[in-house]
């Protein structure tokens, strides 16, 4: 039986192998860098909203409590976006004619929803619960950053599973007195970790890292 020989022209390909190897390496490094980059993880994501609502003005300068609008945050998984009626509590009198607020007035008049773009978007197979965190003393600021200083809300943390687990494994730096949860400017006196550890002990906080804690 005749042996199989590669045709002679295939030798030309062999010379190209280092190039292929180099490109593969670049590709792999690039892929990893891209995959782990904050941009991919949506850090800094700050979409335009139908109404240029300023958290900096409302939560920061006017110091309106987070819970005035996000009413369900302490009792439900969702920190619900407020209904238009909540805005109108003030805006019937304050800037009632502002052109920027037209979508709001239309929503109320037509009884239609305002279509906000979701900034902090977890995957559908993640079952995150706001109430479980804020009632334990994990502040809004731990995940959402200084929203009270944001003209436009943007994502400041990667919200990746690894990032969640960091805190679930070592929550102490992020646990604060429950009455300070909505005080975004609050800074601990002394060592945050030490305080957190004490609070965890007092309140029996022992976050689970089991898969079914978040995935069902």
């Amino acid at each position: 039986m005749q042996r199989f020989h590669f045709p002679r022209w295939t030798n030309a390909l062999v010379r190209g192998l280092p190039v292929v190897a180099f490109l593969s390496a670049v590709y792999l490094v690039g892929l990893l860098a891209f995959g782990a980059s904050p941009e991919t993880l949506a850090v800094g994501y700050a979409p335009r909203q139908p109404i240029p609502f300023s958290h900096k003005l409302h939560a920061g300068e006017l110091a309106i409590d987070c819970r005035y609008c996000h009413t369900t945050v302490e009792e439900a998984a969702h920190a619900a976006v407020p209904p238009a009626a909540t805005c109108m509590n003030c805006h019937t009198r304050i800037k009632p004619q502002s052109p920027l607020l037209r979508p709001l007035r239309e929503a109320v008049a037509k009884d239609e929803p305002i279509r906000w773009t979701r900034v902090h978007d977890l995957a559908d197979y993640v079952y995150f619960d706001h109430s479980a965190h804020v009632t334990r003393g994990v502040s809004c600021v731990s995940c959402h950053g200084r929203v009270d200083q944001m003209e436009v809300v943007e994502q400041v943390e990667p919200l990746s599973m690894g990032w969640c687990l960091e805190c679930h494994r070592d929550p102490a730096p992020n646990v604060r007195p429950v009455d300070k949860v909505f005080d975004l400017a609050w800074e601990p006196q002394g060592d945050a970790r030490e305080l957190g550890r004490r609070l965890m002990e007092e309140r029996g906080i022992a976050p689970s890292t089991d898969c079914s804690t978040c995935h069902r």
Partner: protein
Amino acid sequence: MTNQTTTHWRSLRELENDPDLVEIASREFKDIAPETLEGVDRRRFLQLLGASAALATASGCSWEEEQILSFSSRPEHFIPGATKSFATAMDLFGAAKGLRVTTFDGRPIKVEGNPLHPSSNGATDVHAQAAILEFYDPERSRQVLREGAPSSWDAFHEALSTDFDPGRGDEGAGIAVIARASGSPTEARLRAALLERFPRATWVVYEPAGDENHVRGNELAFGRSLRARYDFRRARRVLALDADFLRDHADCVRHSAELGEGRRPESGAMNRVYAVESRFTSVGATADHRLPLRSSDVPAFVELLEDRLLGERGLRLGAPQPGPHARSLAQNTTLADFVEAAAADLLEHRGESLIVVGKSQAPEVHARVARMLQALGCVDRTVSWLPVAETTHSDSRALRALCARAAAGDVETLLVLGGNPVYDAPADADVASALERAATTVHLGLTVDETARACQWHLPLAHFLESWSDATAFDGTYSVVQPTILPLHGGRNAAQVLAGLLGEEADALGLVRATFEQRFGAAQWNRALHDGLVADSAQKSVVPALRDEVEYRIEELSADTGLELDFYACPKLIDGRYANNGWLQELPDFTTKLTWDNALMVGPATAAELGVEHEEVVELTALGVTLELPVYVAPGQARGSVAVALGYGRTAAGVVGGSTTEAVTSVGVDVRQLRRTAGMWILRGARVRGTGRKYALATTSEHHMIDGAGMEAREARLDRLVPTATAAEFAEHPDFAQHVVHHPPLESLWKEVELPDGHRWGMSIDLSACDGCNACVIACQAENNIPVVGKEQVLKGREMHWIRMDLYYSGDPDAPEAVTQPVACQQCEHAPCEQVCPVAATVHTQEGLNDMVYNRCVGTRYCSNNCPFKVRRFNFFNNTAFLDEPQNELLQLAQNPEVTVRSRGVMEKCTFCVQRIQKTKIAAKNAQRPIEDGEIQSACQQACPPQAIVFGDLADPTSRVAQLHASPRSYALLGELNIRPRNQYLARVTNPNPALVATSVDHGHHSSH
């Protein structure tokens, strides 16, 4: 058969040690023929690999942008993403089952029983569980149709205004209504108003699986329409005569709960159940003694029983002598012994005994049993008599008479208010021709079914989950039907349609409140709405006098009656109304494990006599009609009888159940042509002839067998899988289940892991109480988004149910005993599945759950291979892809948002309803309080009528589950493997009559040591 009397088997094929089955059972996935794996060559493999890589790249890199739609004004107390539950009720056969419906963001997603309601006590049956799928069925009709073309409610009322003109001279002689049995007081009120305005109008109630023989029998006995309400809590001896009171009864959930209470040996006084029946039913499987007997021989059995109970040796009340047929039956010693033992037992427990007769038996039989119940002192103890409302009393003879009148042209306007009589009426009530002759015909229904197609008008019916109504429980308790959402398709209910025809305001809530206020006053409304019922509104029972002058003659059978054909209401589809419900179609029937078909049930001996085989297509001839249908050789089917389920062969059910317009073949065979008003349930003189052709029946009895090694291993092991003892043995050795398996001291293969203090979730399943109602299976399916896979896939063993009901037969195949065992993931502490997963997709939690992480799973299926219980299910296809098709969008709403919808290539299994655990844990921790025992209920537990399933925290020694685990009856399945399942079973204890045990064959109940 002597050596077979001690064997246990799941199917007759297994009993015969079919070599094919042994081969299949030795493989983990019976559907993967070895050749397909070996046959894939390298080239094909690389092609597939390349294709999947290309697809993976194409499927995008980042999330879709999501929008948040906020309310313009959020309703008070409304929390987005939180569930709420509302009390409501479901009317089936005119009897309400009290329910609590869970809604999520304003849409119903799960049905539970209402713990306050006497009909459910918090539990449900398969039909209530499946109501969610029925509600979101994309094929529900969406508009008023006139001759098949879209129309409107206004046009309908306009068109019928002359038919229902109050000024018409003939007092409504041309108006006729065919209604389903309904317990709605509002509907009854409007019916009365209609009949007052049109006194000569006809109103017929028809239920294809109604209990009219029972009511007519009591009319014979007492001279008035009465229905029996059984109290199984007080009944210590129960004799069921062709009666599947655990499934085929309007009050079945309560029956199941009460009977189950007395099946537990710890209850002090265990009840004892005798079953005499032609078909193997759940009552037969639960019974301590079962006698297979043709339905047409049951009257003779009743004669013998009456003679013994009321005759010289009984209560000396004098009873008619048994006829010649009964006397010839009594020659059979098994039967004679059975009668003797049962009668003696009933007499001994006078006032605590109960005889239940099935709907298939003639009114005369019911009358005779009523007389016996009276003599046994059962009235107002184990049985109470309740007056029958006219709107719940089905009357097939009246339907036949109406059809005859209509055929003669006497009916101008024919209204079908719910129901599907064109499909389900007996053959001698020709509803189709009646609808053809009438000038105006109207159908109100959930779908455009067979009857809708035959009517000029079709009106979309509002489902009970979307419409205000009211209902009456079997015991008469007033129940409110509260909607959980606005009507999806602009439907209206029967009361609204009637009100519209009477020219009244057709506002559903207004109609219900008017009825309510008339009876209870306005003040009680909020309470009733909250509870779902008005407490203490049950009917008063009556103590009627027997009409003793009447002789209830029982038809004397001639010696040669030929083969008997029994019809029975399918425990899943009932009369076909659930034919388009995939959950129910794919639910394995309790005794046959048959899915997606009905078949001719033939006992093994009868099959041999007829020369037909399992899965052979036969010609069934009776009354000049010949039908072809497949044979199912069913253990326990009485010799000389065959049986077939109603509810199949629908031609206008939809894409699930069969539809001629959609070119979808019907599921099963329609046997309506063989039903006559005179023989709704039993037909004698049928002939069966084999054709030699085969038809594949999708039964799951041979799927997911714990023993791959076939009969031999099973034989050695069954007593370990399901240890059984009699009450006497139990009294002597309460811990018999612990001593069934002898094994050397257990040593762990792994380093013992110390679990931290905290919850230790566990479950206990009581095999004495479980009667195989399947409610857990559908409840699990609804809660956990378990897909339906279809008949082809079931044939390959790919059904996805997370909990399965294993059924083991034992003894003579023609008169077997059976024991059932629900099996879901046992949540082993040393889980074999976790050891073999290469990607850590199944891992242990600190609370002892065996987590399944779908996103990690790469589908090696090693875990399933290594699972000794065979409880893992693999998604061979993307079983949920159809949800993305535009016509199925509505079905997306039926999914539980708290549970991931799985895709292809992923393994899944029972999680102990981890979403419910987390929900309660979070709520409790938020409030800084401990979790109470019983606060977390798994879906299967919540649905279970006899409360056979208990879930809870084993770390709390006072919890119910911890106490049950400590019971001497408690044992771990395959405990000798030392995998420490967190689920344990309570061994089955039966309570046989010593008098019968001595004479019957030894059933192989092992000796305790």
